[in-house]
């Protein structure tokens, strides 16, 4: 039917018509639009520079400020965006789409910051430090999610476990000191993990219902006790906090030092836990078994792996991680418990887990994106940008949506996620 002359043309059309190429072209268009946006709306008055402070006068090693000439920088940013866009539009392969978009968004954020900061200054190091701090509970929540969803137990209860950890940390911490408080928070988190496991594994309750219910229960109990008891006995809700301590030498490195090596126990704890659980899940015997249970429990069962025990263990572990994360709110931050003080951070942790593709490092990175958006909006609010504060404070949420929609696409959970397993 088709004669020889058109074959070459159709081959090219074939390429263009494939769904991914279409997405690549759309993304190319988006990038070009962003370039125009940077060029026309983020124009900086000539001669104005943005100053990013890298050290504070208190730091041991002093380095100068990062001074960025606004106009030229944003011209270059627009040019880069345009280049990426055109490249993507003309010959974007599937693999390049996400990378280009990631780079594009990063450039956009930088251009925006330079624009907002033109003629002013703020502490870049401080912002990064805050990014880390704000990311901690979310990263730990996400890690808890990873641990339990890797064995195919959906963990909506992270929010409740965080809250329980925060509460226990405050109560026990007030009575017996920070360390005991922290271990108690871990233990209580573990108890709720165990409860979740019992409900979904042994009593085969719907996993989502079980999670929602634990959240309700913890919220109820902690709010009840805090209004019925804490209001009267204030000394029960006055815990010591873990202060930040600088790791010698490393902590003095400019920019990176304050962000990673001059923080409190919880930040170090989160980083270590992420590393340890990555090793555990992907390089140890038990990690392999856990993942097998999450992907194909029946297969694991036929090989003599106890599916129930594995689920109990990991969900309890997840609870302990979340309990530790919860303790951050009280022992690692403000030293006292307040009703519903986690305020949805557990759910955001869940988002971080999905965004991080059920991988501990992914969850941490996602939490950092969120923390970054959160701390950037606080800086922007100080810079007197003409954007209403309500919109600035939406930034972390909008960033999350954009990243999830634009960069991730469909990510795949462990195959058996959410399904109960019945032995005969």
């Amino acid at each position: 039917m088709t004669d020889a002359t058109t074959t070459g043309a159709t081959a090219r059309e074939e390429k263009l018509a494939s769904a991914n190429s279409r997405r690549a072209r759309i993304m190319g268009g988006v990038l070009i639009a962003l370039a125009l946006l940077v060029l026309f709306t983020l124009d900086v008055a000539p001669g104005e520079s943005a100053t990013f402070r890298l050290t504070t006068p208190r730091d041991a090693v002093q380095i100068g400020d990062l001074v960025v000439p606004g106009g030229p920088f944003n011209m270059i940013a627009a040019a880069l965006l345009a280049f990426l866009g055109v490249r993507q539009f003309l010959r974007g392969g599937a693999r390049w789409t996400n990378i280009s978009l990631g780079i594009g968004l990063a450039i956009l954020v930088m251009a925006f910051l330079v624009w907002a900061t033109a003629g002013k200054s703020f502490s870049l190091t401080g912002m990064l430090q805050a990014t880390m701090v704000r990311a901690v509970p979310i990263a730990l929540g996400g890690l808890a999610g990873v641990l339990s969803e890797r064995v195919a137990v959906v963990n909506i209860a992270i929010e409740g476990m965080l809250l329980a950890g925060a509460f226990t940390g405050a109560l026990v911490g007030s009575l017996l000191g920070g360390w005991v408080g922290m271990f108690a928070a871990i233990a209580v988190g573990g108890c709720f993990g165990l409860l979740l496991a019992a409900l979904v594994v042994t009593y085969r309750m719907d996993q989502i219902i079980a999670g929602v219910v634990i959240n309700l229960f913890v919220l109820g109990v902690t709010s009840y006790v805090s209004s019925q008891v804490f209001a009267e006995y204030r000394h029960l809700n006055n815990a010591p906090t873990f202060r930040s301590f600088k790791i010698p030498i490393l902590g003095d490195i400019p920019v990176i030092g304050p962000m990673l090596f001059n923080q409190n126990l919880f930040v170090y704890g989160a980083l270590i836990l992420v590393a340890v659980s990555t090793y555990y899940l992907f390089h140890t015997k038990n990690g392999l078994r856990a993942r097998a249970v999450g992907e194909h429990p029946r297969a694991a069962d036929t090989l003599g792996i106890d599916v129930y025990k594995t689920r109990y263990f990991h969900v309890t572990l997840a609870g302990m991680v979340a309990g530790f994360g919860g303790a951050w709110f009280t022992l690692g931050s403000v030293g006292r418990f307040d009703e519903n003080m986690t305020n949805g951070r557990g759910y955001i942790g869940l988002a971080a887990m999905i965004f991080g593709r059920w991988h501990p490092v992914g969850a941490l990175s996602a939490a950092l994106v969120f923390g970054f958006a959160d701390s950037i909006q606080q800086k922007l609010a100080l810079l007197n940008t003409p954007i209403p504060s309500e919109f600035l404070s939406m930034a972390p949420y909008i960033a999350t949506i954009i990243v999830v929609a634009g960069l991730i696409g469909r990510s795949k959970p462990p195959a058996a996620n959410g399904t109960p397993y019945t032995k005969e």
Partner: protein
Amino acid sequence: MTDKRPDLKDVNERMRGLLARTTHGRDDFEDLVIVPVFAVIVALIFGALIMLATAVDLPTIGRSFVALAVGSVGSLSAWSETLTASIPLVLAGLGLGLGFRAGLFNIGAEGQLLMGGLAAVVAGFSLDFLPMVLHLPLTLLVGALVGALYAAIAGFLKATTGAHEVISTIMLNLISFRLLDWFLRQPFIQREGRSDPISKDVPPSAELPRILDFIDVNLRLHAGIFVMLAAVALVYWMLFRSKIGFAFRASGENPDAANYAGMKAAFIIVLAMGTAGALAGLAGATQVQGVLGRASPGFSAGIGFDAIAVALLGRSHPVGILFAGILFGALEAGGRQMQVDAGVSIDLIGIIQALIIIFIAAPLLVRSIFPWGFRKRRKGGEA
């Protein structure tokens, strides 16, 4: 071949057999009646234990339970309060349940309710030239529509980019709180002469009239209850009778099969999210048009989150959601009375709600606590 085609009489016989409906067995009865009753009892006992643990004395505990009963079902005004509280819970719960049926775990009812309610307020005061017969339904409709649009954002993102709806609806909730704060200080919406964030009033022609005020003006039950009942019927029809509901359920249960059957996944996701959002928006609209009369920061008061529990408790079935919503409404109304009469914090109600759901959703647990309440299952069957 002919010998394998059974004769007509035989065919009719067999068809009749295939079409005979089995009557509900004892197991259904146990699941639908005995389990919930036990669940409520156990939850109340646990509640009492928690009060004991926090040094509440026995007479106070007794008084609080009496208050809980009296405040929820003990009088006409208690019933009025119970039903009033259940209206938005049921409406939003229906939306969530419908989403669950279509395989969408929508956590966004809170935000959809907020946006829908705000839109209803705006429509209420800006369309006040209309007569009530138009104004009232139109205002409800605007609430539903805006709720639907807000939810459709998450649906659209999932359909086009695969963004997980759990994430996007959580984020949209958080965004909606900020949006509301912002809207409430815009001159167009903020009430004249007020410096605090409060919207203009919903005019009487857009208010859902109180239906029991001929008995007592303080009875707050409003016409939203009819909206609620109509929605229950509509959602039931939609899910189990209509074509689109069939598609919702099929794609919820098995997206591959739905795709095979020519159902358009993207369309269904957006439509199911939109419908869920419309119901949540309607919940917000009835709340502002029937109870609050205006919008102010956080007027949604967590209804959207409680509705998740209601939908789950009602097993995503419209009738189940109706009962679950009324149960939650009763606990809320009773809890208020409990606080007044016995001085026990209303947070206890949250605990009891959670416990009830645990026991209802895990029949196995109730069965193992009350083994004598249930007939023994056949040997070899599930535990």
